């Protein structure tokens, strides 16, 4: 989502900085040297498959896990040496729910206000404000166990915002929600970004959620393989993607290379070709002596970006052989 905003002179300091971050668990290297800067006010997305190191990085930024090496700051505060101060500056919404089912929405928020040391007289109005923001004002006094999954998640977002953090971390915020609840949740996230002076740091493995971000970092096997706006990342992998199935794919690769001077790579039982203009390219496939069975043209998606950098799709279990082909032709 191309969201525009003014640059506040006082907020030039990055909301999040990460330098050479490494986290090892014994033999396993979960995070292998990550560097990034998040600008204040940004919706920053961390896109990658499960086990890529997204959650570990978030846990380090939230002071829950100590890094093996490297440095990270939130609003200029060091996550290692200024833990309590960092914790006041961040709001957290985890993958799993962390609200107390037996308390009401308001009691949950009051609990949070106390453990975050909010000034007493600000608590009441602030609770009203955040509940209104996530559309739960009328459920203030209901026990949380009567809430749906989507409502609980919204309550958690309200709670994450309660103490006015500078950075709100959303770790897979829509996991386990039905499509409708996901949509509702995103409407509220957009709304909170309009109203609150806040940076949102999101992890996801959903492409459509990554598309909403101002910038995304694509993470695979503990390293950032690409970083930029969704549009620029997609631009890097070639404008259009032509998917063609032929009777003999191996022979077709050679023919296409020779006659059309472009690279085709196998993708499942078809071939993928990256070209600037897919529609005008398709007719050229006919008449070069390959037996075309089907053709389709699509705009590149973030999944294609991931495929280009990681050599596999986000849903795949094992990485395929690296396919760096798209970087050669389509880069601009």
């Amino acid at each position, binding site marked *: 989502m191309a969201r525009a905003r003014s640059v506040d002179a006082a907020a030039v300091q990055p909301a999040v900085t990460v330098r050479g971050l490494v986290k090892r668990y014994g033999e396993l290297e979960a995070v292998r040297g990550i560097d990034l800067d998040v600008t204040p006010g940004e919706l920053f997305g961390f896109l990658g498959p499960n086990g890529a190191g997204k959650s570990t990085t978030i846990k380090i930024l939230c002071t829950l896990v100590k890094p093996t090496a490297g440095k990270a700051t939130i609003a200029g505060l060091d996550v290692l040496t200024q833990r309590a101060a960092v914790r*006041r500056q961040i709001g957290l919404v985890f993958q799993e729910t962390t*609200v107390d089912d037996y308390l009401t929405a308001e009691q949950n928020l009051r609990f949070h206000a*106390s453990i975050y040391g909010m000034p007493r007289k600000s608590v009441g109005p*602030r609770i009203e404000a955040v509940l209104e923001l996530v559309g739960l004002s009328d459920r203030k006094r209901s026990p949380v166990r009567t809430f749906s999954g989507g409502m609980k998640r919204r309550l958690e977002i309200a709670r994450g915002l309660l103490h006015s953090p500078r950075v709100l971390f959303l770790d897979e915020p829509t996991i386990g929600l039905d499509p409708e609840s996901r949509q509702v949740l995103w409407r509220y996230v957009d709304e909170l970004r309009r109203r609150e002076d806040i940076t949102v740091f999101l992890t996801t493995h959903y492409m459509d959620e990554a598309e909403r971000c101002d910038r995304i970092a694509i993470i695979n096997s503990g390293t950032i393989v690409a970083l930029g706006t969704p549009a620029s990342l997609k631009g890097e992998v070639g404008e259009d993607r032509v998917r063609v199935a032929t009777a003999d794919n191996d022979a077709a690769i050679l023919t296409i290379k020779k006659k059309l001077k472009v690279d085709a790579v196998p993708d499942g039982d078809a071939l993928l070709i990256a070209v600037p203009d897919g529609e005008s390219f398709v007719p050229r496939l006919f008449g070069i002596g390959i037996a075309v069975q089907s053709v389709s043209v699509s705009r590149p998606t973030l999944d294609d970006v991931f495929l280009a950098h990681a050599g596999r799709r986000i849903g795949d279990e094992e990485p395929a052989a690296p396919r760096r082909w798209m970087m050669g032709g389509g880069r601009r």
Partner: protein
Amino acid sequence: MTAQAVERQIDVAPVVSPLGGMVHELRAIAIVWQRDMVRTVGDPARLISTLLQPLLFLFVLGAGLSAAVRGGTGGADYKTFLFPGVLITGILFTAVFSAISIVWDREFGFLREMLVAPIASSSIVVGKCLGGATIATVQSVLIIALAGAVHVPYRAGLMFGLLGVVFITSFTMTAFGLVLAARVKSVQTLMPLVNMLLMPLTFMSGSLYPLGPGAPQWLDIVARYNPLSYAVTASRTLVIRSLPKTSPTRALFHGLTWLGWPVPGWLDAIVVAAVGLLLLTIACVLFSRTE
């Protein structure tokens, strides 16, 4: 981000929280305590069931035992003797179960909400400990109110003394529960473990029968190393002392001894408190390491 500049509208005034310190930690302890209160009041079924158990001990087991031992006690009232033991036994389970609710909190994620807050994890542990102690003490008020039914005199000094011992004991037992909860992460494992530990602790504390000359010697020795014996003896010292000098029930009671030296009742209470503080410290250390 695009370069195009659009002024953002910010309607919600941000809150600035001053940086922590002792006041903040005390407030955290208070809210953890308060949450336990709110949850307990919201769950009367649990309150009633924990209340019924001591009544069962006192009026059913007590009645049966009194009848069985009547000949051998020289006219002593066994139910009177049993009263302090039942009082302590009754709060054990309440206190320990209150503590291990933190395992449920871990399972349902709420522990995380507490542990990621800008507070010391020991504030959570202390708040939990005070919560368990409060719930158990309030519960014991109802048992203490029945003192007259088993011929324990209603005297202000005795009542407050008993409440004091009960509070110290339930604080210690909650801390004990927290130490278990810090190490054992699943409720399924913890429940049988608690039963396995609490039953022998209760039976070897002299809560249900007299220790001293009449008891098997090994039991007498084991009891000396059982913190619960000190809690039972402290409360029983108070009850026995409030009885008339001529009461035959007095003869049933023998305090604990260290190398032949009779341990006074106040020291019994201090032993319980010291064990409680030690367990609390251990629980704080364990919880600061968990996440």
